[in-house]
C-alpha cells in the first residue's frame, strides 16, 4: 500500500464526511464548512493521484486544476457567507427551514 493511496482514501473519507455533515446539519455556517471539507477531499484525491506516476515530478495539470478549484471554492464560500448574513438579517435565523419533499 502506497502512501499516495493512503491520501486518496483520506480524500474519499473527507468527501464523505463533508457530505454527511452537509446533509445532517441545518446550520448554514456548518453546511458551508462541510462543503469546503468536501472540496478539500476532492482536491486531495486529484493531487494524490497525480503523484502516483513514479519518479519524476508529479503531473502539473491536476495541480493547476486544484489551484483553480481552491479559488473557485473561496469565491463560492465568500458568496455563501454573505448570503448567510443576509438570510440571518431577513429571516432571523441562519438555518434552512425543514424542507418537505414536494
Amino acid at each position, binding site marked *: 500500500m502506497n502512501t499516495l493511496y493512503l491520501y486518496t482514501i483520506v480524500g474519499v473519507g473527507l468527501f464523505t464526511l463533508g457530505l454527511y455533515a452537509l446533509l445532517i446539519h441545518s446550520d448554514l455556517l456548518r453546511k458551508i464548512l462541510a462543503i469546503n471539507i468536501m472540496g478539500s477531499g476532492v482536491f486531495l484525491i486529484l493531487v494524490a493521484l497525480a503523484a502516483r506516476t513514479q519518479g519524476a515530478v508529479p503531473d502539473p495539470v491536476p495541480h493547476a486544476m486544484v489551484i*483553480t478549484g481552491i479559488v473557485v471554492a473561496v469565491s463560492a464560500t465568500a458568496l455563501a457567507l454573505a448570503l448567510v448574513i443576509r438570510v440571518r438579517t431577513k429571516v432571523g435565523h441562519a438555518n434552512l427551514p425543514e*424542507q418537505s419533499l414536494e
Partner: protein
Amino acid sequence: MLSFLLPQRVKLLGLLIAAGVVAAVAALGWQVAELGAQRYAIGGWGAPLGIDLYADGLSLLMLMVNAVVCLGVSVYSTGYFNRAYFRRSRAIYFWPLWMFLWAALNALFLSSDIFNLYVTLELLGLSAVALVALAGGADALTSAMRYLLINLLGSLFYLLGVALLYHRFGSLDITILSQHIEPSPAVWVAMGLMTSGLLLKTALFPMHFWLPAAHASAPAPVSALLSALVVKASFYIFLRLWLEIFPVDSSVFGELLGVLGAIAIFWGGVQALRQTRLKMLIAYSTVAQLGYLFLAFPMASYFAWKGALFILLSHALAKTAMFMAAGNILHFGGHDRIQDFDHVVQYQPLTSAAFALAGISIMGLPPSGGFIGKWLLLEAAINSGQWWLVIIIIMGGLLAAAYIFKVIGYAFTQSRKSHQTRRVPIRMEWTALILAIAAILLGLIAPWPLAIMDIGLPFSGEAAG
C-alpha cells in the same frame, strides 16, 4: 464572447452587448452550417494540452436558443428593472450579473473540456444564485441559499468524477476521452458521480425539491432564465457525456432515468395543478417538462434524442414567455394568486395571449414546437414498443393542459373586484408575446432546427436505431 462590465450606465451597454453576442452566434451559426462542426483550439495548443472549443449542431442550437431567449430577457429587463419600486441599488447589479450568466452559458455550450465545463458550471451557478437573491425577500434569500448549496454539491460530485476520469485516461477533452473510453470500475463510479451531480442541478425528479422555490421567488426575468436555460445547461453537459463518453451498454441506467423522468412528469404536473400561486405553478411545470427530456434515455434512438431536444428548445422559449407574463401580471396587479386573476388578465390582453400561446407549446398542441417534440418522442416510443412511455407522454400533456387552463380560465371571467393596478411597460408585454410566438413558430419551421441537429452528427451512434 466574454462580456463583463461594472460601471452603472449598463442598460444601453447591456443591450449593445446583447446584440453583439447575437450577431456572433449568428456568424458562428453560419460557419457551422456551411462548414460542419467547428473546433477551435484556445491558445493554439490543441486538445490534449490546451482547451478546445467545439461547436456542432447540438451546441449551435443551444447557443441559438440561448441568444434568442437572452435577447428577449435583456429587452424585458430594461423595463423590469426600471420600476420605481425596485431599488436602484439592487437593479444596477442585475446587468453585470446577468452578463456573467450569459457568458457562462455561452462558454458552457462551446466547451469540449470537462474541467473547463466545471469552471463554467460554477460561474453559471454562482451568478444564478446571486440573481435569485436579487429579489431580496426572505423567500428569495432562503431559496437562493439552498440553491447555492445544491449547486456547490452538484459541482463537487461532478468534479470528483472529472478527477477519476482524468487519472484514468489522462485527458480532459471530451473527444479524446470518447476515443479511449472503456468500461472499468473507475469509469462506472465516475459516471455515477457526474450523473448525480449534473442531475441534481438539472432537478430530475427526486432531486427537484430545490427548484420550485428558487424559480418562483426570483425576479421574473431571472426565473425565466433559470427555467429556460440554466437547468438545461447541466442537462446539456449530461447529454454530451452520455452520448460521447459513457459506455453505450448502459440501458438499465437509461431505463432508470426514463422512470424518473416519468415520475417527474406526473409529480410536477400534479403539483402544478395544486398550486395557488402562478409562479409556483410555472416552476412545477418546469419540473414536469424536464421529465420529458429524460424520457429519451430509455429509447436512446435518433428520433427520441431529437424529440427531447426539440422539447428542450421549445420549452426554453415558452417558459421564458410564461415567466415574463407572470412577471407582468405580478407587476400589474401586485400579486400572483391564481384565484384573484379575473381583472388582471383582462386588462392585459397581450400578456394573457403570451401566456396562452406559451401554454399551447407546453401542452404540446400543434403547431407548436412542443408538439413536434412530443410527436417525435411518441413515434420513437411506438417504434421501440415502449407503450408505458406513450401513456406517460399522453398523460403528461393532459396534465399540462389542466394546469394551464386553470389559469387561462380566469382570463375570461368577469370580476367586480377592483384591483390596485400599475402600468406595465409595453415592451415587457411585447417581449413575452414575441417569445411565445417564437415557441409556436418553432413548430412550423421544425425541419430547420432538426437539420441543424445533424451537423457534426452528435447522435450518429444511434442513427441506425
